[in-house]
């Protein structure tokens, strides 16, 4: 029985984000919120491990109260519990207090044998939080992993490096970060979704974690955004393959016997 955690984040769907043509800032007001895509792969890696070894999966997110649906979505896919770490003290955190708060939550929940994270989030792309959690907890870690198996008392993590696959053996407890498209995530099912919505999620606030307010949220964030520069739009190549080009492509494919 492995005790498994998956750390996820609710992010605006990158397909829905537009750039304001005047202010050049990101407009995410119309965006649908989704589970950060690599986190869905992290959850699937966790579910695959649970399928094989048994265990319990707790999905954890830090975010505003509306992030509860992201947890319910993960429970619909097969996670057992959802923990929403939410408190005004946690707001405005950069990756340092985020890692600290999530690590503290894992600790508060009694620790885990393995914690899965996505390789990075699509809305900030730092890749800091997974390794940060590992460091704060003093867990072993492996990043950019595709697949995790368990050979007691070790985890075997496979990671793609250029032109080869590297296999790591890491001790327990461990943090692994999973790459985008590492696996084909299973769909949520109606029954599991119903169970999730009925069961609901558990909220963890700072009155539970009792962290020093100076170390969390905006106050605990060492990062200061000094300046932002916008980059000129790349020149769009006016080449637009017409149906003639498509014909050529198809005839080449047919010639080579790739399509019939």
């Amino acid at each position, binding site marked *: 029985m492995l005790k498994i955690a998956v750390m996820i984040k609710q992010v605006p769907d990158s397909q829905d984000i537009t750039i304001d043509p005047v202010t050049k800032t990101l407009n995410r007001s119309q965006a649908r919120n989704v589970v950060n895509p690599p986190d869905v792969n992290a959850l699937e890696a966790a579910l695959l491990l649970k399928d094989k070894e048994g265990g319990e999966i707790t999905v954890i997110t830090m975010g505003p109260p509306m992030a509860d649906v992201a947890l319910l979505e993960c429970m619909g896919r097969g996670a057992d519990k959802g923990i929403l770490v939410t408190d005004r003290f946690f707001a405005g955190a950069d990756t340092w207090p985020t890692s600290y708060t999530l690590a503290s939550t894992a600790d508060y929940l009694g620790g885990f044998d393995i914690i899965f994270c996505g390789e990075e989030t699509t809305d900030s792309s730092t890749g800091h939080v997974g390794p940060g959690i590992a460091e704060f907890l003093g867990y072993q870690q492996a990043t950019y992993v595709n697949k995790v198996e368990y050979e007691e008392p070790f985890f075997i993590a496979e990671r793609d490096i250029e032109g080869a696959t590297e296999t790591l053996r890491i001790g327990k407890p461990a943090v692994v970060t999973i790459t985008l498209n590492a696996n084909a995530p299973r769909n949520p099912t*109606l029954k599991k979704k119903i169970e999730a919505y009925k069961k609901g999620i558990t909220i963890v606030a700072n009155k539970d974690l009792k962290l020093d307010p100076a170390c969390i949220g905006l106050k605990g964030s060492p990062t200061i955004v000094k300046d932002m520069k916008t980059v000129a739009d790349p020149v769009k190549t006016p080449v637009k393959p017409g149906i003639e080009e498509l014909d050529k492509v198809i005839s080449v494919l047919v010639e080579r016997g790739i399509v019939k």
Partner: protein
Amino acid sequence: MANFKENIKRINSSESISGRMPDYDAIVVGAGNAGSAAAITMASKGLNVLLVDRADPPGAKNLSGGVLWGNDLAEILPKWQTEAPLERFIDNKKIGFLTEKSSIVIDFKTEFFRDNKIAHSVLRAKFDPWMAKKAKEAGALVIPGITVESLAIEDRTVVGIKESGDTITANVVLLAEGVNPRLSIEAGLRKPLQDRELSVGVKEVIKLSAQKIEDRFNLTKESGMASEYIVGSLGNLNIGAFFYTNKESISLGIVSPMEELRRNGVTHTYDLIEKFKSHPSIAPLIEGGTTIEYGAHLIPEGGIDSVPQLYGNGYMLLGDAAGLAFSNGLVLQGMNYAIVSGIKAGEAVAEAKARNDFTAKSLAVYEQKLGSTYALKDLKTFKDIRKVTNNPKMYTVYPQLLEGILLETLWERGQPKKKTRDVIGEAASKLSVGKVKALTDLYGIYRRM
């Protein structure tokens, strides 16, 4: 219903669910206007309701022309006018013909519409999630992002729904699955869709600033315009079109009967909307606008003949899935019909629960209730309307006749004027339509409308 019986015989359920307490009083499939209205009605009465939609957020796959008449909605959500994400209230309705070079339009702008603000343009991807949220607030369990795979049927009774190998049971399953109701068809609860009962709707939402919209269409900050056209400018293809104003966009599109498209056989549906947009009377209205979303949807236009058996043991059909939409060439309505069917179905389930009887006999009250509303009455009153809307003369000959008359009477060409009687006669003979035949035809149209 022979089809249904055969189907039930073919279904061998591996484990019997009868004898077990059902999971829900009612399961509603589809969070459109009909499904959410039903869920709100039932949950408000304390019933245990599951509402499942295949889109996430619920309703995000729904599409319509976009004018909602809110009389029925007010019954279940009295604060809809202030709470719902609405676009503009319609106080200007236009109906007209388009010929190749002209548009002949009746422009009806009225304080009557303005007084109660009952018609609003809406965008469904914004409006429907709001209605689903209201269902949740009323106490229904709303599950988005799940496509129900099939109905669970036992002893000629619908007992639940199936998905990923699981069966979720209920006393009644309300099928509000839309115009292409796969579950109902596959279970034999209604016939497969046919050409004659369908139109293909193709739509664009075109972004235009509120200021431009208000200036261009002579509107205030909140008021809006809705127009419907009979398009006779596309050769032998007879189609309809619509044009509605939203807050900061235009919804426009074409409605092509499937029979017309098949008969024609050489025109892409997606080209038709471009032809409508480039009509000399439409193009200036959308000048400077950008298409922000394209979309398409089927529209049920079969009238009363296409309305299937509305209920049976453990199930009911609602809204578009039941063919409950109205079209007579001048008016195209579906959302209000969906909502009223949702409310009546919901009431019927509540009554059936009080009797603890969910057989066809007990659920028949749904049809009785619906029969006393405009929804079924309209479809019965206009049962022959397809003879009008299918009459090719409506699209070509009569608009051209009207155009000819207007040209003769309103266009000063420095020539002697003619009496109106002669103008009509000449215009008719030019179009080689006999006067007697035309009169009989027009009388037929008049009688059926």
